C-alpha cells in the first residue's frame, strides 16, 4: 500500500432500511477516507447513521449503492465469504458491550483471531502474552471474562482486536459502559496501541473524551456528513 493510499475509502454510500411499510434512509451518500494509522471519531446523535457507517466500514453490512475499498481492495464485487476472510485478516472489532466469549479465558479470547488465521501455537502464545502484557492483563490470562471488571474486559477486547495487527479497527462506543477513570484509560490504551501498530481506527462515540483523542472527528446528522 502506498503512503497516499487510505486504509478505508468510502464513496457516496447509501443505505436504507425498511421499517414496516416505510423505508428509512440511514446514509445519504456518505464519502469518507481514513488514512493509515489515523484515528477517526464518528459522532452524532442517536439515529444519525453512525452505526450504519461503522458496519459498512467494518464489512459486516453492505450498502445499497456506493463504493468501498479496504487497503486498496475494491469490496463491491466480493461475496460474503470473501468479506469474512478480509475481516479475519484486516479488521479488528471492539464492541460497546465487550462481546467476549464467556466460556473462554482471557487468554483464549485474545488468541481466537490467531486460531482463525492458522498461526502456529508457539507464535500464538508469544503474541498473546505480549499483547496481554501491553494491556496489563497478563496476570489475568486464565480468568474468565465474568471475573473481570468492565475496564479489564474492554482491555481484553482491545487486545483481541489488535493481536492480529489489523489494518483497521472498528470500535463502537468503547467507553459507553465504563466510568470516567476507566474510560480515560481505555481511550489512552486504544490510542497508544493503534498508533504503535499503525492501525487505522474508526470509532463511533458520544464521548467527548474519546473524540478529543482522535486525529479527526466526523459528525453525522441524519445520514449526512457535516
Amino acid at each position: 500500500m502506498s503512503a497516499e493510499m487510505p486504509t478505508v475509502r468510502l464513496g457516496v454510500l447509501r443505505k436504507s432500511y425498511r421499517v414496516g411499510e416505510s423505508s428509512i434512509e440511514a446514509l445519504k451518500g456518505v464519502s469518507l477516507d481514513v488514512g493509515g494509522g489515523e484515528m477517526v471519531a464518528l459522532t452524532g446523535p442517536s439515529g444519525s447513521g453512525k452505526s450504519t457507517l461503522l458496519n459498512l466500514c467494518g464489512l459486516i453490512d453492505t450498502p445499497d449503492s456506493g463504493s468501498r475499498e479496504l487497503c486498496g481492495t475494491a469490496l463491491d464485487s466480493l461475496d460474503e465469504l470473501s468479506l469474512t476472510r478480509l475481516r479475519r485478516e484486516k479488521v479488528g472489532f471492539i464492541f460497546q458491550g465487550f462481546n467476549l466469549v464467556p466460556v473462554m479465558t482471557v487468554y483464549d479470547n485474545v488468541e481466537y483471531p490467531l486460531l482463525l488465521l492458522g498461526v502456529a501455537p508457539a507464535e500464538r502464545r508469544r503474541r498473546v502474552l505480549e499483547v496481554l502484557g501491553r494491556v496489563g492483563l497478563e496476570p489475568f490470562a486464565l480468568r474468565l471474562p465474568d471475573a473481570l471488571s468492565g475496564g479489564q474486559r474492554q482491555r481484553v477486547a482491545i487486545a483481541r482486536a489488535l493481536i492480529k495487527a489489523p489494518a483497521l479497527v472498528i470500535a463502537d462506543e468503547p467507553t459507553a459502559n465504563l466510568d470516567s477513570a476507566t474510560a480515560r484509560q481505555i481511550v489512552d490504551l486504544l490510542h497508544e496501541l493503534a498508533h504503535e501498530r499503525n492501525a487505522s481506527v474508526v470509532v463511533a462515540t458520544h464521548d467527548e473524551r474519546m473524540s478529543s483523542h482522535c486525529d479527526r472527528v466526523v459528525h453525522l446528522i441524519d445520514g449526512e456528513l457535516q
Partner: protein
Amino acid sequence: MKWLVFAWKNVMRNRRRSLTAMLITAFGTAAVLASGGFALFTYESLEEMTARDSGHVVVAHARGFEGDEDVPLQHGLADATGLAAKFAALPGVRAVAPRVQFSGLISNGDKSAVFVGSGVVPEIDFRLRGPQMNFSAGQSPASNAPAPEVVIGDELARLMKAKVGSSLTLLATTTEGNLNAVDVVVSGIAGVGVPEIDKRLVLADLASVQRLLLSDKVGTLSIYLKETADTEAVAARVRELQPDLAVKTWRDLAVFYQAVRALYNRIFGILGVIMICIVLFAMSNTLGMAVVERTREIGTLRAIGTLPSEVVRNFVFEGMVIGGAGAVAGMVLAGGATVALLFAGIEMPPPPGRSVGYPLFLSFSPLLYGAVTLVVVTLAAAAAWMVSRRAANKPVTEALAHV
C-alpha cells in the same frame, strides 16, 4: 483439539440442559444396545440349536431333500461309511453323523401312537446334540445292547406309560413297501422342549433302524464343524468333492431361525428408528436453545472473521461431545446390564410352541457397540448442523442486534 476444548466448555455452559440431553442419549443408546444384544443372543442361540440339531452341513442324495420318496430311503445314500470318512477328513470338520429319518407307529401292547424317529449313531449323535437334549431319565441307546434300545420323547413316554426299561414295539414301512416291526427297550426319556416334537420323538440305534427298514442306506450325513463360521466354506468343498449329491447348510434348513430373525430385525429396527428420533429431538432441542441464546456471540465471532462453516463446525463439535458422552454412558449402562444378567439368573418364559424357557442374556458385540456409537454421534452432529446453520448464516448486524 482446541476446538474440542471450546466445545466441551460450551456444553458445560448449561450443565442441566446438556446433562438432560446426554442422559436421553445414554438411555436411548443403552436401549438400542440392550435390545440389539438380546436379538444377537437369540440369533446365536437359535444358530447353535439349529446347527446342533441338523449339523452345520447336511449331505443327501441328489433328490434327498425333495421329500417325495415312495418308500423309506428310496433316495438314501448307499456308501455312507466311505462318504463319512471322506468328509471327516476335511479341515474344520468335528464329526460326521449318519442319520435315517423314519416314521410309523409305536405301541406298548395296549395303545399305539404315531412316532417320528431318527436312526443315529448314539456315540456320535448324543455327544453332538449337547444340552439341546435334556434327559429326564436313563441314557442314550447302546449300539451293542442285546435288544435294540431307543430314547423316546418325554411326552411320548407319558402317552405310552413307558419308563426306562419298558418294552415297546416300533412298526414301520420297509424300503420294499411292507410293514415290519421290531421290539425295543427304552434306554432313556428325553425332551427337546418342543411339545409337538417330544410327543413323537424316537431316537434309535442306526443299525437297528436299518434292520427295521431292510436297508443299509442312510438318509443324510450331518457334518458338524468346529466353527460355525466355516459352514459355507466346508459346504462348498463338499459340493466340489461330491457334485452328484445335494448339500444344504443349517441356515438353508433353519426355517424357524430365519422367521425369528426376520421378525426380530423388524421389531428392533423399529425400536432403533424410534430411538433415533428421540435422540435427534433431544439434541435438536438442546442445541437449538443454545444457538438461540448465543446468537449475539455468533454475530461477534462472525464479525471477527469466523466463517459460517466454522460456526457450524463448533456447534457440530458440541453435538458430538454431547452425543459421544451420551453414547459412552449408554455403552456403560448396556455393558453393565449385560454383565449383571450373567449373574442374575433371569429366565424368560417359554416361546410359543415350546415347553421350556431360556435364560435372559445379552450378547456383547463390539461391532454393534461401535456401529451404535457411530450412529448416535453422527445423529448428534447432524442435529447440531441442522439447528446452527441458519444462525451461522444470519447477517452479522442482525446477529449482533439479537437480544
